[in-house]
Protein backbone atom coordinates (compact mmCIF):
# COMPACT_ATOMS: atom_id res chain seq x y z
CA UNK A 1 0.00 0.00 0.00
CA UNK A 2 1.54 3.35 -0.98
CA UNK A 3 1.98 6.13 1.56
CA UNK A 4 1.20 8.88 -0.94
CA UNK A 5 -2.29 10.44 -0.99
CA UNK A 6 -4.68 8.68 -3.32
CA UNK A 7 -5.49 9.54 -6.93
CA UNK A 8 -8.81 7.76 -6.69
CA UNK A 9 -11.78 9.08 -4.72
CA UNK A 10 -13.06 7.18 -1.68
CA UNK A 11 -16.18 5.93 -3.43
CA UNK A 12 -14.36 3.67 -5.88
CA UNK A 13 -13.13 0.40 -4.44
CA UNK A 14 -13.53 -2.48 -6.86
CA UNK A 15 -12.71 -3.46 -10.43
CA UNK A 16 -16.38 -4.07 -11.11
CA UNK A 17 -17.29 -0.55 -9.99
CA UNK A 18 -14.59 1.02 -12.17
CA UNK A 19 -15.61 -1.12 -15.15
CA UNK A 20 -19.32 -0.46 -14.69
CA UNK A 21 -19.00 3.29 -14.23
CA UNK A 22 -16.98 3.68 -17.43
CA UNK A 23 -18.50 1.08 -19.73
CA UNK A 24 -22.19 1.06 -18.80
CA UNK A 25 -22.89 4.58 -20.17
CA UNK A 26 -21.36 3.49 -23.49
CA UNK A 27 -23.49 0.35 -23.67
CA UNK A 28 -26.82 1.92 -22.77
CA UNK A 29 -28.95 2.97 -25.68
CA UNK A 30 -30.53 6.15 -24.41
CA UNK A 31 -28.93 9.47 -23.63
CA UNK A 32 -30.00 12.25 -21.31
CA UNK A 33 -31.61 15.41 -22.63
CA UNK A 34 -28.44 17.41 -21.82
CA UNK A 35 -26.43 15.26 -24.24
CA UNK A 36 -29.01 15.79 -26.98
CA UNK A 37 -29.02 19.55 -26.47
CA UNK A 38 -25.23 19.61 -26.58
CA UNK A 39 -25.33 17.50 -29.74
CA UNK A 40 -27.86 19.85 -31.36
CA UNK A 41 -25.80 22.93 -30.59
CA UNK A 42 -22.59 21.35 -31.83
CA UNK A 43 -24.31 20.12 -35.00
CA UNK A 44 -25.60 23.63 -35.65
CA UNK A 45 -22.13 25.12 -35.17
CA UNK A 46 -20.65 22.44 -37.43
CA UNK A 47 -23.15 23.42 -40.10
CA UNK A 48 -22.06 27.04 -39.67
CA UNK A 49 -18.44 25.96 -40.14
CA UNK A 50 -19.22 23.94 -43.25
CA UNK A 51 -21.29 26.80 -44.64
CA UNK A 52 -18.48 29.25 -43.98
CA UNK A 53 -15.89 27.01 -45.63
CA UNK A 54 -18.05 26.26 -48.67
CA UNK A 55 -18.81 29.97 -49.12
CA UNK A 56 -15.14 30.88 -48.83
CA UNK A 57 -14.03 28.22 -51.31
CA UNK A 58 -16.79 29.01 -53.76
CA UNK A 59 -16.37 32.78 -53.64
CA UNK A 60 -12.66 33.11 -52.92
CA UNK A 61 -10.49 33.88 -49.90
CA UNK A 62 -11.41 37.54 -50.23
CA UNK A 63 -14.40 36.78 -48.03
CA UNK A 64 -11.94 36.58 -45.15
CA UNK A 65 -10.07 39.52 -43.67
CA UNK A 66 -6.85 38.47 -45.40
CA UNK A 67 -5.39 41.23 -47.58
CA UNK A 68 -2.26 41.83 -49.65
CA UNK A 69 -0.04 42.35 -46.60
CA UNK A 70 -1.74 40.23 -43.94
CA UNK A 71 -1.82 37.12 -46.07
CA UNK A 72 -2.27 34.83 -43.09
CA UNK A 73 -5.27 35.63 -40.96
CA UNK A 74 -7.75 33.55 -39.03
CA UNK A 75 -7.20 30.26 -40.85
CA UNK A 76 -3.52 30.02 -39.94
CA UNK A 77 -4.09 31.31 -36.40
CA UNK A 78 -6.78 28.63 -36.05
CA UNK A 79 -4.47 26.00 -37.45
CA UNK A 80 -1.68 26.80 -34.98
CA UNK A 81 -4.14 27.03 -32.09
CA UNK A 82 -5.81 23.70 -32.82
CA UNK A 83 -2.48 21.88 -33.28
CA UNK A 84 -1.38 23.36 -29.98
CA UNK A 85 -4.53 22.10 -28.28
CA UNK A 86 -3.88 18.64 -29.71
CA UNK A 87 -0.30 18.47 -28.49
CA UNK A 88 -1.20 18.34 -24.82
CA UNK A 89 -3.12 15.12 -25.35
CA UNK A 90 -0.04 13.34 -26.62
CA UNK A 91 2.13 14.86 -23.91
CA UNK A 92 -0.29 13.66 -21.22
CA UNK A 93 -0.41 10.12 -22.54
CA UNK A 94 3.24 9.82 -23.46
CA UNK A 95 5.37 12.12 -21.37
CA UNK A 96 3.51 11.34 -18.17
CA UNK A 97 3.69 7.61 -18.94
CA UNK A 98 7.46 7.81 -19.26
CA UNK A 99 7.61 9.81 -16.02
CA UNK A 100 5.44 7.15 -14.31
CA UNK A 101 2.89 9.68 -13.13
CA UNK A 102 -0.15 7.79 -11.82
CA UNK A 103 -2.51 10.73 -12.25
CA UNK A 104 -2.51 10.33 -16.01
CA UNK A 105 -4.54 7.09 -15.77
CA UNK A 106 -7.98 8.69 -15.67
CA UNK A 107 -7.37 11.54 -18.11
CA UNK A 108 -5.20 10.06 -20.82
CA UNK A 109 -7.99 8.47 -22.88
CA UNK A 110 -9.88 11.77 -23.13
CA UNK A 111 -6.62 13.58 -23.83
CA UNK A 112 -5.69 11.20 -26.68
CA UNK A 113 -9.16 11.51 -28.21
CA UNK A 114 -8.87 15.28 -27.93
CA UNK A 115 -5.56 15.10 -29.79
CA UNK A 116 -6.98 13.15 -32.70
CA UNK A 117 -9.99 15.46 -33.02
CA UNK A 118 -7.97 18.67 -32.63
CA UNK A 119 -5.26 17.60 -35.09
CA UNK A 120 -7.88 16.56 -37.66
CA UNK A 121 -9.56 19.94 -37.37
CA UNK A 122 -6.20 21.72 -37.48
CA UNK A 123 -5.36 19.86 -40.68
CA UNK A 124 -8.41 21.36 -42.39
CA UNK A 125 -7.13 24.91 -42.13
CA UNK A 126 -3.94 24.79 -44.21
CA UNK A 127 -6.05 23.12 -46.88
CA UNK A 128 -8.86 25.66 -46.92
CA UNK A 129 -6.58 28.67 -46.53
CA UNK A 130 -5.13 27.89 -49.95
CA UNK A 131 -8.34 29.07 -51.58
CA UNK A 132 -7.76 26.62 -54.38
CA UNK A 133 -7.78 23.75 -51.93
CA UNK A 134 -7.69 21.01 -54.51
CA UNK A 135 -4.03 21.82 -55.17
CA UNK A 136 -2.92 21.00 -51.63
CA UNK A 137 -1.43 17.77 -52.98
CA UNK A 138 1.31 19.84 -54.58
CA UNK A 139 3.10 19.67 -51.22
CA UNK A 140 3.55 15.94 -51.79
CA UNK A 141 6.00 14.42 -54.30
CA UNK A 142 3.54 13.01 -56.83
CA UNK A 143 4.56 11.89 -60.31
CA UNK A 144 3.94 14.77 -62.73
CA UNK A 145 4.77 15.76 -66.29
CA UNK A 146 6.56 18.96 -65.27
CA UNK A 147 9.41 17.29 -63.34
CA UNK A 148 8.30 19.29 -60.33
CA UNK A 149 9.10 18.41 -56.75
CA UNK A 150 7.90 20.01 -53.53
CA UNK A 151 10.18 22.71 -52.14
CA UNK A 152 11.86 20.52 -49.48
CA UNK A 153 13.39 23.60 -47.90
CA UNK A 154 9.99 25.09 -47.12
CA UNK A 155 8.44 24.84 -43.67
CA UNK A 156 5.05 24.43 -45.31
CA UNK A 157 6.14 21.18 -46.92
CA UNK A 158 7.56 19.97 -43.59
CA UNK A 159 4.14 20.83 -42.12
CA UNK A 160 2.36 18.48 -44.52
CA UNK A 161 4.50 15.53 -43.45
CA UNK A 162 4.60 16.48 -39.80
CA UNK A 163 0.83 16.83 -39.42
CA UNK A 164 0.16 13.69 -41.43
CA UNK A 165 2.68 11.65 -39.43
CA UNK A 166 1.38 13.08 -36.15
CA UNK A 167 -2.27 12.36 -36.93
CA UNK A 168 -1.64 8.79 -38.09
CA UNK A 169 0.68 8.15 -35.13
CA UNK A 170 -1.93 9.44 -32.68
CA UNK A 171 -4.57 7.18 -34.21
CA UNK A 172 -2.31 4.13 -33.79
CA UNK A 173 -1.45 5.10 -30.23
CA UNK A 174 -5.09 5.70 -29.31
CA UNK A 175 -6.32 2.49 -30.92
CA UNK A 176 -3.80 0.14 -29.37
CA UNK A 177 -4.46 1.37 -25.83
CA UNK A 178 -8.18 1.02 -26.58
CA UNK A 179 -8.00 -2.68 -27.57
CA UNK A 180 -8.29 -4.13 -24.01
CA UNK A 181 -11.17 -1.77 -23.23
CA UNK A 182 -12.97 -2.72 -26.44
CA UNK A 183 -12.66 -6.31 -25.24
CA UNK A 184 -14.32 -5.27 -21.97
CA UNK A 185 -17.17 -3.67 -23.92
CA UNK A 186 -17.44 -6.79 -26.06
CA UNK A 187 -17.80 -8.96 -22.98
CA UNK A 188 -20.24 -6.68 -21.19
CA UNK A 189 -22.52 -5.90 -24.13
CA UNK A 190 -25.91 -7.63 -24.07
CA UNK A 191 -26.97 -7.02 -27.68
CA UNK A 192 -25.31 -9.34 -30.19
CA UNK A 193 -24.70 -6.72 -32.88
CA UNK A 194 -23.02 -4.44 -30.32
CA UNK A 195 -20.90 -7.38 -29.11
CA UNK A 196 -19.85 -8.12 -32.67
CA UNK A 197 -18.82 -4.56 -33.50
CA UNK A 198 -16.75 -4.08 -30.36
CA UNK A 199 -15.49 -7.63 -30.69
CA UNK A 200 -14.24 -7.04 -34.21
CA UNK A 201 -12.26 -3.99 -33.16
CA UNK A 202 -11.04 -5.74 -30.00
CA UNK A 203 -9.26 -8.22 -32.32
CA UNK A 204 -10.10 -11.12 -30.01
CA UNK A 205 -8.12 -9.75 -27.05
CA UNK A 206 -8.31 -12.24 -24.20
CA UNK A 207 -6.22 -10.62 -21.50
CA UNK A 208 -3.27 -12.95 -21.91
CA UNK A 209 -0.39 -11.75 -19.73
CA UNK A 210 2.00 -12.62 -22.55
CA UNK A 211 0.05 -10.24 -24.76
CA UNK A 212 0.02 -7.62 -22.00
CA UNK A 213 3.82 -7.87 -21.90
CA UNK A 214 4.06 -7.21 -25.63
CA UNK A 215 1.45 -4.43 -25.32
CA UNK A 216 3.54 -2.79 -22.60
CA UNK A 217 6.69 -2.96 -24.76
CA UNK A 218 4.84 -1.41 -27.70
CA UNK A 219 3.01 1.19 -25.64
CA UNK A 220 6.14 2.46 -23.90
CA UNK A 221 8.00 2.55 -27.21
CA UNK A 222 5.18 4.63 -28.68
CA UNK A 223 5.33 6.97 -25.71
CA UNK A 224 9.08 7.39 -26.19
CA UNK A 225 8.52 8.13 -29.89
CA UNK A 226 5.59 10.46 -29.24
CA UNK A 227 7.45 12.96 -27.08
CA UNK A 228 10.05 13.93 -29.71
CA UNK A 229 7.35 13.71 -32.38
CA UNK A 230 5.15 16.23 -30.58
CA UNK A 231 8.08 18.55 -29.95
CA UNK A 232 9.20 18.32 -33.57
CA UNK A 233 5.69 18.78 -35.01
CA UNK A 234 5.01 21.92 -33.08
CA UNK A 235 8.54 23.15 -33.67
CA UNK A 236 7.88 22.80 -37.39
CA UNK A 237 4.70 24.83 -36.93
CA UNK A 238 6.84 27.48 -35.23
CA UNK A 239 9.33 27.25 -38.07
CA UNK A 240 6.54 28.22 -40.48
CA UNK A 241 7.16 31.68 -39.06
CA UNK A 242 10.74 31.48 -37.87
CA UNK A 243 12.39 30.48 -41.17
CA UNK A 244 11.13 33.70 -42.76
CA UNK A 245 12.87 37.06 -42.54
CA UNK A 246 9.89 39.02 -41.21
CA UNK A 247 10.42 41.26 -38.17
CA UNK A 248 9.09 39.59 -35.06
CA UNK A 249 9.17 36.15 -36.68
CA UNK A 250 12.82 35.56 -37.42
CA UNK A 251 13.71 34.18 -33.97
CA UNK A 252 15.28 30.90 -32.99
CA UNK A 253 13.11 31.01 -29.86
CA UNK A 254 10.01 30.11 -31.86
CA UNK A 255 10.23 26.31 -31.89
CA UNK A 256 10.43 25.80 -28.08
CA UNK A 257 8.15 28.79 -27.48
CA UNK A 258 5.48 27.23 -29.68
CA UNK A 259 5.85 23.83 -28.03
CA UNK A 260 5.40 25.29 -24.54
CA UNK A 261 2.49 27.36 -25.82
CA UNK A 262 0.93 24.18 -27.17
CA UNK A 263 1.32 22.39 -23.84
CA UNK A 264 -0.14 25.46 -22.15
CA UNK A 265 -3.28 25.80 -24.27
CA UNK A 266 -3.72 22.05 -24.54
CA UNK A 267 -3.80 21.59 -20.78
CA UNK A 268 -6.43 24.31 -20.65
CA UNK A 269 -8.58 22.30 -23.03
CA UNK A 270 -7.97 19.06 -21.12
CA UNK A 271 -9.07 20.76 -17.89
CA UNK A 272 -12.31 21.91 -19.49
CA UNK A 273 -12.98 18.47 -20.96
CA UNK A 274 -12.28 16.81 -17.60
CA UNK A 275 -14.73 19.11 -15.89
CA UNK A 276 -17.33 17.99 -18.43
CA UNK A 277 -16.35 14.37 -17.91
CA UNK A 278 -16.71 14.64 -14.16
CA UNK A 279 -20.39 15.42 -14.60
CA UNK A 280 -20.96 11.84 -15.71
CA UNK A 281 -22.14 9.76 -12.76
CA UNK A 282 -19.38 7.92 -10.95
CA UNK A 283 -16.46 9.58 -12.69
CA UNK A 284 -15.85 12.16 -9.97
CA UNK A 285 -13.97 9.48 -8.03
CA UNK A 286 -11.61 9.03 -10.97
CA UNK A 287 -10.98 12.68 -11.81
CA UNK A 288 -10.38 14.16 -8.42
CA UNK A 289 -9.64 17.67 -7.19
CA UNK A 290 -6.02 16.56 -6.91
CA UNK A 291 -5.95 16.07 -10.68
CA UNK A 292 -7.00 19.69 -11.17
CA UNK A 293 -4.38 20.76 -8.64
CA UNK A 294 -1.63 19.03 -10.62
CA UNK A 295 -2.88 20.24 -14.01
CA UNK A 296 -3.04 23.76 -12.60
CA UNK A 297 0.61 23.48 -11.58
CA UNK A 298 1.53 22.49 -15.15
CA UNK A 299 -0.41 25.47 -16.50
CA UNK A 300 1.25 27.79 -13.99
CA UNK A 301 4.72 26.55 -14.94
CA UNK A 302 3.92 26.95 -18.65
CA UNK A 303 2.57 30.43 -18.01
CA UNK A 304 5.84 31.44 -16.39
CA UNK A 305 7.78 30.03 -19.35
CA UNK A 306 5.51 31.90 -21.76
CA UNK A 307 6.07 35.10 -19.82
CA UNK A 308 9.80 34.53 -20.02
CA UNK A 309 9.50 33.84 -23.77
CA UNK A 310 7.61 37.07 -24.36
CA UNK A 311 10.25 38.98 -22.38
CA UNK A 312 13.01 37.28 -24.41
CA UNK A 313 11.32 38.27 -27.66
CA UNK A 314 10.98 41.87 -26.56
CA UNK A 315 14.53 42.00 -25.32
CA UNK A 316 16.03 40.49 -28.49
CA UNK A 317 13.99 42.83 -30.67
CA UNK A 318 15.05 45.86 -28.63
CA UNK A 319 18.70 44.84 -28.16
CA UNK A 320 19.24 44.00 -31.84
CA UNK A 321 19.98 46.76 -34.31
CA UNK A 322 17.25 46.06 -36.83
CA UNK A 323 15.02 49.13 -37.32
CA UNK A 324 12.23 46.88 -38.57
CA UNK A 325 12.36 44.95 -35.28
CA UNK A 326 12.27 48.17 -33.26
CA UNK A 327 9.28 49.38 -35.27
CA UNK A 328 7.62 45.99 -34.78
CA UNK A 329 8.14 46.17 -31.02
CA UNK A 330 6.75 49.69 -30.80
CA UNK A 331 3.78 48.63 -32.90
CA UNK A 332 3.10 45.63 -30.64
CA UNK A 333 2.95 47.82 -27.54
CA UNK A 334 1.34 50.94 -28.94
CA UNK A 335 -0.15 50.10 -32.34
CA UNK A 336 -3.55 49.13 -33.68
CA UNK A 337 -3.67 45.77 -31.92
CA UNK A 338 -2.18 46.91 -28.61
CA UNK A 339 -5.50 46.32 -26.82
CA UNK A 340 -5.46 42.69 -27.97
CA UNK A 341 -1.82 42.44 -26.92
CA UNK A 342 -2.51 43.54 -23.35
CA UNK A 343 -5.56 41.30 -23.19
CA UNK A 344 -3.37 38.40 -24.34
CA UNK A 345 -0.79 39.17 -21.65
CA UNK A 346 -3.47 39.28 -19.01
CA UNK A 347 -4.96 35.94 -20.06
CA UNK A 348 -1.65 34.12 -20.54
CA UNK A 349 0.65 35.59 -17.92
CA UNK A 350 -1.35 37.48 -15.28
CA UNK A 351 -4.45 35.35 -14.75
CA UNK A 352 -2.59 32.01 -14.34
CA UNK A 353 -0.50 33.55 -11.53
CA UNK A 354 -3.56 33.05 -9.33
CA UNK A 355 -2.65 29.36 -9.42
CA UNK A 356 0.28 29.94 -7.05
CA UNK A 357 -2.21 29.66 -4.19
CA UNK A 358 -3.11 26.04 -3.35
CA UNK A 359 -6.61 27.13 -2.37
CA UNK A 360 -7.11 28.53 -5.88
CA UNK A 361 -5.72 25.40 -7.56
CA UNK A 362 -8.10 23.14 -5.69
CA UNK A 363 -11.17 25.19 -6.57
CA UNK A 364 -12.43 23.72 -9.82
CA UNK A 365 -14.32 26.90 -10.91
CA UNK A 366 -11.10 28.92 -10.57
CA UNK A 367 -9.07 26.42 -12.56
CA UNK A 368 -11.86 26.29 -15.16
CA UNK A 369 -11.93 30.08 -15.54
CA UNK A 370 -8.16 30.29 -15.82
CA UNK A 371 -8.18 27.46 -18.42
CA UNK A 372 -10.77 29.29 -20.48
CA UNK A 373 -8.78 32.50 -20.29
CA UNK A 374 -5.65 30.60 -21.31
CA UNK A 375 -7.38 29.11 -24.35
CA UNK A 376 -8.68 32.51 -25.41
CA UNK A 377 -5.37 34.20 -24.61
CA UNK A 378 -3.41 31.67 -26.64
CA UNK A 379 -5.70 32.22 -29.62
CA UNK A 380 -5.07 35.95 -29.27
CA UNK A 381 -1.35 35.22 -29.16
CA UNK A 382 -1.45 33.14 -32.37
CA UNK A 383 -3.43 35.93 -34.02
CA UNK A 384 -1.05 38.62 -32.80
CA UNK A 385 2.03 36.74 -33.99
CA UNK A 386 0.49 36.91 -37.45
CA UNK A 387 -1.04 40.38 -37.28
CA UNK A 388 1.72 42.38 -35.64
CA UNK A 389 4.33 41.17 -38.10
CA UNK A 390 2.38 41.08 -41.33
CA UNK A 391 0.59 44.37 -40.93
CA UNK A 392 3.81 46.16 -39.98
CA UNK A 393 6.54 44.47 -42.01
CA UNK A 394 9.73 45.71 -43.67
CA UNK A 395 8.03 47.93 -46.22
CA UNK A 396 6.11 50.89 -44.69
CA UNK A 397 4.05 51.39 -47.86
CA UNK A 398 2.59 47.92 -47.29
CA UNK A 399 1.48 48.61 -43.74
CA UNK A 400 -2.17 47.82 -43.44
CA UNK A 401 -4.76 46.90 -40.87
CA UNK A 402 -6.49 43.54 -40.69
CA UNK A 403 -10.24 43.46 -40.15
CA UNK A 404 -11.84 40.05 -39.62
CA UNK A 405 -15.06 39.23 -41.44
CA UNK A 406 -18.17 37.30 -40.53
CA UNK A 407 -16.90 34.29 -42.44
CA UNK A 408 -13.71 34.31 -40.34
CA UNK A 409 -15.72 34.12 -37.15
CA UNK A 410 -18.14 31.57 -38.60
CA UNK A 411 -15.34 29.18 -39.43
CA UNK A 412 -13.60 29.71 -36.07
CA UNK A 413 -16.61 29.22 -33.84
CA UNK A 414 -17.93 26.54 -36.15
CA UNK A 415 -14.70 24.61 -35.72
CA UNK A 416 -15.14 24.75 -31.95
CA UNK A 417 -18.63 23.33 -32.46
CA UNK A 418 -17.22 20.61 -34.71
CA UNK A 419 -14.68 19.75 -32.00
CA UNK A 420 -17.50 19.49 -29.48
CA UNK A 421 -19.48 17.28 -31.87
CA UNK A 422 -16.64 14.82 -32.34
CA UNK A 423 -15.88 14.72 -28.62
CA UNK A 424 -19.57 14.06 -27.87
CA UNK A 425 -19.60 11.21 -30.37
CA UNK A 426 -16.43 9.83 -28.78
CA UNK A 427 -18.05 9.86 -25.33
CA UNK A 428 -21.10 8.13 -26.79
CA UNK A 429 -19.35 5.19 -28.42
CA UNK A 430 -16.04 4.69 -26.62
CA UNK A 431 -14.98 4.49 -22.97
CA UNK A 432 -13.89 7.95 -21.89
CA UNK A 433 -11.51 6.70 -19.21
CA UNK A 434 -8.97 3.93 -19.66
CA UNK A 435 -10.59 1.05 -17.79
CA UNK A 436 -7.53 -1.17 -17.65
CA UNK A 437 -5.33 1.63 -16.37
CA UNK A 438 -7.88 2.48 -13.66
CA UNK A 439 -7.77 -1.18 -12.55
CA UNK A 440 -3.98 -1.01 -12.37
CA UNK A 441 -4.27 2.20 -10.34
CA UNK A 442 -6.76 0.57 -7.97
CA UNK A 443 -4.23 -2.21 -7.38
CA UNK A 444 -1.38 0.28 -6.87
CA UNK A 445 -3.43 2.17 -4.32
CA UNK A 446 -4.21 -1.06 -2.50
CA UNK A 447 -7.94 -0.87 -3.09
CA UNK A 448 -8.51 -4.11 -5.00
Amino acid at each position, binding site marked *: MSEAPAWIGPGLKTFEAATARISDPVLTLGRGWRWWIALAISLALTAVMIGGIVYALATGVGVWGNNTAVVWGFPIANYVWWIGVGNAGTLISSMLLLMNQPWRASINRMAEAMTIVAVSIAGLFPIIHLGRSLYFYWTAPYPNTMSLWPQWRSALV*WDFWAILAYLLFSILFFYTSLI*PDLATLRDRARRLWVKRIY*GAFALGWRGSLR*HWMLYRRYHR*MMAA*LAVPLVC*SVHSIVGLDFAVTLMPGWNESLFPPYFVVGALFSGFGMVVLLCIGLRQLPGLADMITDRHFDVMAKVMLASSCVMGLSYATEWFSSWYGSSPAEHRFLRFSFTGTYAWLFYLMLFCNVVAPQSLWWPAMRRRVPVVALVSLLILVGMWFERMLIILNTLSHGHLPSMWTVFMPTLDDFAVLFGSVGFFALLILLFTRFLPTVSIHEMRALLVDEGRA
Partner: protein
Amino acid sequence: MTRAAIGSYADIECFRSALREAHRQGHIIHDAYAPMDMEEADELLGRQTGGIRRIALVAGLVVAALAYGVQYWSLFYSYSFNSGNRPLNSWPVFLLVPFEVGVFAAALAGLITFLVRTGLPRLNHPLFEIDAFDQVTQDRFFVALKASDEDAERATLQWLHASGAEQVWAVSL
Protein backbone atom coordinates in the same frame (compact mmCIF):
# COMPACT_ATOMS: atom_id res chain seq x y z
CA MET B 1 -3.36 -28.92 -29.40
CA THR B 2 -2.36 -28.57 -25.76
CA ARG B 3 -4.40 -29.97 -22.91
CA ALA B 4 -4.68 -27.35 -20.23
CA ALA B 5 -6.26 -27.04 -16.84
CA ILE B 6 -7.76 -23.58 -16.31
CA GLY B 7 -8.64 -22.00 -13.00
CA SER B 8 -10.33 -18.68 -12.33
CA TYR B 9 -9.59 -16.42 -9.38
CA ALA B 10 -11.57 -13.48 -8.04
CA ASP B 11 -8.83 -12.10 -5.82
CA ILE B 12 -5.62 -10.69 -7.22
CA GLU B 13 -3.50 -11.83 -4.27
CA CYS B 14 -4.83 -15.37 -4.61
CA PHE B 15 -4.02 -15.27 -8.30
CA ARG B 16 -0.50 -13.95 -7.70
CA SER B 17 0.31 -16.60 -5.11
CA ALA B 18 -1.19 -19.37 -7.26
CA LEU B 19 0.97 -18.24 -10.17
CA ARG B 20 4.09 -18.14 -7.99
CA GLU B 21 3.34 -21.53 -6.44
CA ALA B 22 2.65 -23.09 -9.83
CA HIS B 23 5.98 -21.81 -11.10
CA ARG B 24 7.78 -22.96 -7.94
CA GLN B 25 6.27 -26.42 -8.05
CA GLY B 26 7.27 -26.92 -11.64
CA HIS B 27 3.88 -26.75 -13.36
CA ILE B 28 4.16 -25.56 -16.92
CA ILE B 29 2.28 -22.30 -17.15
CA HIS B 30 0.77 -22.16 -20.61
CA ASP B 31 -0.50 -18.63 -19.97
CA ALA B 32 -2.22 -16.45 -17.43
CA TYR B 33 -4.99 -13.96 -18.07
CA ALA B 34 -5.85 -10.72 -16.30
CA PRO B 35 -7.98 -7.63 -16.85
CA MET B 36 -4.94 -5.38 -16.69
CA ASP B 37 -1.18 -5.49 -17.15
CA MET B 38 0.77 -7.16 -14.37
CA GLU B 39 4.48 -6.57 -14.65
CA GLU B 40 5.32 -8.89 -11.77
CA ALA B 41 4.21 -11.89 -13.83
CA ASP B 42 6.93 -11.30 -16.42
CA GLU B 43 9.50 -13.45 -14.61
CA LEU B 44 7.04 -16.30 -14.05
CA LEU B 45 5.95 -16.48 -17.66
CA GLY B 46 9.31 -15.76 -19.21
CA ARG B 47 10.04 -12.27 -20.44
CA GLN B 48 9.41 -11.80 -24.12
CA THR B 49 10.07 -8.65 -26.05
CA GLY B 50 8.87 -9.89 -29.41
CA GLY B 51 11.56 -7.87 -31.13
CA ILE B 52 9.00 -5.07 -31.43
CA ARG B 53 11.44 -2.27 -30.69
CA ARG B 54 14.22 -3.69 -32.85
CA ILE B 55 11.95 -4.07 -35.84
CA ALA B 56 10.45 -0.62 -35.29
CA LEU B 57 13.92 0.93 -35.11
CA VAL B 58 15.03 -0.71 -38.35
CA ALA B 59 11.81 0.23 -40.14
CA GLY B 60 12.04 3.81 -38.89
CA LEU B 61 15.64 4.19 -40.00
CA VAL B 62 15.02 2.61 -43.41
CA VAL B 63 12.01 4.82 -44.15
CA ALA B 64 13.85 7.91 -42.88
CA ALA B 65 16.80 7.07 -45.13
CA LEU B 66 14.41 6.61 -48.07
CA ALA B 67 12.77 9.97 -47.36
CA TYR B 68 16.17 11.63 -47.19
CA GLY B 69 17.11 9.86 -50.41
CA VAL B 70 14.03 11.20 -52.19
CA GLN B 71 14.86 14.76 -51.17
CA TYR B 72 18.51 14.35 -52.11
CA TRP B 73 17.72 12.78 -55.48
CA SER B 74 15.13 15.41 -56.29
CA LEU B 75 17.56 18.25 -55.68
CA PHE B 76 20.74 16.68 -57.04
CA TYR B 77 19.56 14.83 -60.09
CA SER B 78 15.98 15.47 -60.96
CA TYR B 79 15.41 19.21 -60.65
CA SER B 80 18.33 21.11 -59.19
CA PHE B 81 17.69 24.77 -58.45
CA ASN B 82 19.32 27.49 -56.44
CA SER B 83 17.13 28.50 -53.51
CA GLY B 84 18.64 31.42 -51.58
CA ASN B 85 22.15 30.09 -52.36
CA ARG B 86 21.60 27.15 -50.05
CA PRO B 87 23.71 24.11 -50.91
CA LEU B 88 21.94 21.50 -53.01
CA ASN B 89 22.42 19.00 -50.22
CA SER B 90 20.76 21.14 -47.52
CA TRP B 91 21.03 18.40 -44.95
CA PRO B 92 19.86 20.39 -41.86
CA VAL B 93 16.46 21.00 -43.36
CA PHE B 94 16.40 17.65 -45.15
CA LEU B 95 16.38 15.92 -41.76
CA LEU B 96 12.95 17.15 -40.71
CA VAL B 97 10.71 15.19 -43.06
CA PRO B 98 12.70 11.92 -42.61
CA PHE B 99 12.36 12.28 -38.84
CA GLU B 100 8.59 12.63 -39.01
CA VAL B 101 7.98 9.83 -41.48
CA GLY B 102 10.57 7.66 -39.76
CA VAL B 103 8.76 7.94 -36.43
CA PHE B 104 5.47 7.02 -38.04
CA ALA B 105 7.04 4.10 -39.91
CA ALA B 106 8.52 2.85 -36.61
CA ALA B 107 5.09 3.09 -34.99
CA LEU B 108 3.41 1.19 -37.82
CA ALA B 109 6.10 -1.49 -37.97
CA GLY B 110 5.85 -1.89 -34.21
CA LEU B 111 2.09 -2.34 -34.41
CA ILE B 112 2.38 -4.93 -37.18
CA THR B 113 5.03 -6.81 -35.18
CA PHE B 114 2.82 -6.65 -32.08
CA LEU B 115 -0.10 -8.11 -34.02
CA VAL B 116 2.03 -10.84 -35.55
CA ARG B 117 3.59 -11.81 -32.19
CA THR B 118 0.27 -11.88 -30.34
CA GLY B 119 -1.51 -13.65 -33.17
CA LEU B 120 -4.23 -11.03 -33.09
CA PRO B 121 -6.78 -10.61 -34.57
CA ARG B 122 -8.01 -14.00 -33.47
CA LEU B 123 -11.75 -13.68 -33.06
CA ASN B 124 -12.33 -17.26 -31.98
CA HIS B 125 -10.33 -19.20 -29.48
CA PRO B 126 -11.14 -22.29 -27.40
CA LEU B 127 -11.08 -20.15 -24.25
CA PHE B 128 -14.08 -18.17 -25.46
CA GLU B 129 -16.14 -21.37 -25.18
CA ILE B 130 -15.92 -20.99 -21.41
CA ASP B 131 -18.84 -18.73 -20.43
CA ALA B 132 -17.11 -17.44 -17.34
CA PHE B 133 -14.11 -16.36 -19.43
CA ASP B 134 -16.10 -13.22 -20.25
CA GLN B 135 -15.00 -11.98 -16.84
CA VAL B 136 -11.31 -11.93 -17.77
CA THR B 137 -11.71 -8.47 -19.24
CA GLN B 138 -13.56 -7.28 -16.14
CA ASP B 139 -12.58 -8.57 -12.73
CA ARG B 140 -11.39 -12.18 -12.90
CA PHE B 141 -7.96 -13.74 -13.31
CA PHE B 142 -7.28 -17.04 -15.02
CA VAL B 143 -4.36 -19.45 -15.00
CA ALA B 144 -3.84 -22.10 -17.69
CA LEU B 145 -1.49 -24.93 -16.71
CA LYS B 146 -0.35 -27.52 -19.25
CA ALA B 147 -1.22 -31.14 -18.63
CA SER B 148 0.50 -33.96 -20.49
CA ASP B 149 -2.23 -36.57 -20.08
CA GLU B 150 -5.56 -37.24 -18.38
CA ASP B 151 -4.04 -38.12 -15.03
CA ALA B 152 -1.89 -35.03 -14.97
CA GLU B 153 -4.92 -33.01 -15.97
CA ARG B 154 -6.97 -34.36 -13.06
CA ALA B 155 -4.13 -33.69 -10.64
CA THR B 156 -3.65 -30.17 -11.95
CA LEU B 157 -7.36 -29.42 -11.67
CA GLN B 158 -7.25 -30.53 -8.05
CA TRP B 159 -4.17 -28.43 -7.43
CA LEU B 160 -5.93 -25.39 -8.89
CA HIS B 161 -8.90 -25.97 -6.59
CA ALA B 162 -6.59 -26.22 -3.65
CA SER B 163 -4.80 -23.00 -4.60
CA GLY B 164 -8.03 -21.02 -4.32
CA ALA B 165 -9.53 -21.17 -7.81
CA GLU B 166 -13.27 -20.41 -7.91
CA GLN B 167 -13.90 -22.67 -10.88
CA VAL B 168 -11.78 -25.01 -12.97
CA TRP B 169 -12.05 -26.36 -16.50
CA ALA B 170 -10.16 -28.76 -18.74
CA VAL B 171 -9.67 -27.30 -22.19
CA SER B 172 -7.76 -28.17 -25.35
CA LEU B 173 -5.92 -25.04 -26.46
